[in-house]
């Protein structure tokens, strides 16, 4: 997704820490500083609102990388959600945020008033957040600007859904993530990772899916490097387990 930019971590900050002085709030693009999540401008200064690692990317986008379990919707992020309610012309999808997201029955590839997309409760959806601001309930779509489903839509049955902390999810979506590459080399599976920490895996059998789940869960408590080492032993144990029963 998008061209990749280098990101440099600066330091660990706590809520209330002063990051920088900024006379006016950076709203219009002419300002060459962008504030990402975890930072707030208030009368002349920028302060951290979350504990975590202050980071800054090549476009001068400052943000705080923090460990969270609860998802706060961000515009354009890709998420995995569960259909929980049918509201006639739209559906409610639980994406782990405090309000369920809505998705119109038209927001699917070649869906129209006649050929309307019918979802069942409990269906899994991989979509992108079209609307995400604090004043409204988030809105999902499964089509891009040109009404194409670029991999988005309902996820097929027979997969396995599990949750990981948000920072793990973020690291996983990175296409060049060494961990996933390694894992892919070991097992064959298809994986869908939502920024909301919901991970969906599908493989030829349950054993593989479980082992993938366990392997990924390693990242919760250790860095990628450590996980890479530990991964194989975990997978082996899981597979042997499944072989037994």
């Amino acid at each position, binding site marked *: 997704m998008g061209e990749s930019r280098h990101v440099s971590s600066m330091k660990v900050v706590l809520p209330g820490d002063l990051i920088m002085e900024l006379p*006016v*709030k950076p709203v219009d693009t002419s300002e060459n500083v962008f504030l990402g999540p975890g930072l707030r401008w208030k009368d002349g200064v920028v302060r951290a609102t979350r504990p975590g690692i202050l980071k800054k990317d090549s476009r001068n986008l400052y943000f705080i990388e923090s460990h969270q379990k609860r998802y706060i919707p961000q515009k354009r992020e890709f998420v995995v959600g569960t259909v929980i309610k049918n509201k006639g012309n739209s559906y409610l999808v639980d994406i782990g945020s405090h309000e369920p997201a809505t998705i119109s029955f038209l927001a699917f590839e070649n869906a129209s008033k006649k050929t309307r997309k019918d979802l069942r409760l409990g269906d899994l959806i991989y979509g992108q957040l079209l609307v995400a601001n604090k004043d*409204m309930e988030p*809105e999902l779509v499964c089509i891009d600007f040109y009404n194409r489903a670029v991999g988005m839509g309902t996820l097929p049955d027979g997969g396995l859904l599990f949750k990981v902390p948000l920072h793990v999810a973020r690291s996983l979506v990175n296409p060049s993530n060494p961990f996933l590459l390694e894992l892919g080399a070991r097992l064959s599976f298809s994986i869908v990772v939502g920024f909301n920490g919901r991970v969906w895996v599908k493989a030829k059998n349950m054993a593989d899916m479980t082992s993938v789940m366990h392997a990924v869960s390693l990242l919760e408590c250790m860095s990628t490097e450590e996980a890479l080492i530990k991964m194989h032993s975990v997978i082996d144990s899981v597979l042997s387990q499944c072989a037994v029963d």
Partner: protein
Amino acid sequence: MTKLNCFLVLINLLQLISFNIFLQNFHIKLIVMSANASPPIPSSNKNICVPGDRLCLAGNQCHAAEGTYIFNGYIYASRVGRVSTFQKNEQTFVKVTGLSGHSVIPEVGSLVTARVLTIHSQMIKVAILAVDDVTLHTAFRGMVRKVNVREHLVDKVEMYECFRPDDIILARILSLGDARSYEMSTSLPELGVVTARCEEGHLMVPVSWTSMKCHCRTENRKVAKVVPPNT
């Protein structure tokens, strides 16, 4: 509340001696009453009435107006206040003017001032703060449907491009709605957002029918054709 009454009650609660003297004469009067003599109403207060007072015969020569009700062919007062008559197209009406004209509630057709609370894709929820020119002590819930936001391009309406939370809007009551909220409309030029503030709390001023700006940004609104009350 009126000074004197407040004073009375205050000291009555405290039962000060000074008050008891006043109370004594008051009681003497009462005891006379209980020996059956209804108190004479001071002539100066002739035109003051209380609920249930019969004002006049209902009919062509006199019609019931605000603060009255008709029962068995007579007009009675329904509130405490001063009785007065007024002429409207060659007809006499009798009305009772209360002390505080504000036990009002929103009615169909009344113009209301409301604060925007939440925004949904199909409608917004608001709190009604004032009805016509009377400010309410407790707010009533109301809602504006997407179709009632403006007259033109109704199906193009984007709620978030018309209202933001904490905006102050002018609207008209369409119907009593459901048990929860009144149904309202802003689909007239003079209806819509009258006061809005940006995130930093700067007051925004209209720059067009569809947008307002403060010195830090410009945002879209369904702007009403009036000046905000506090500028």
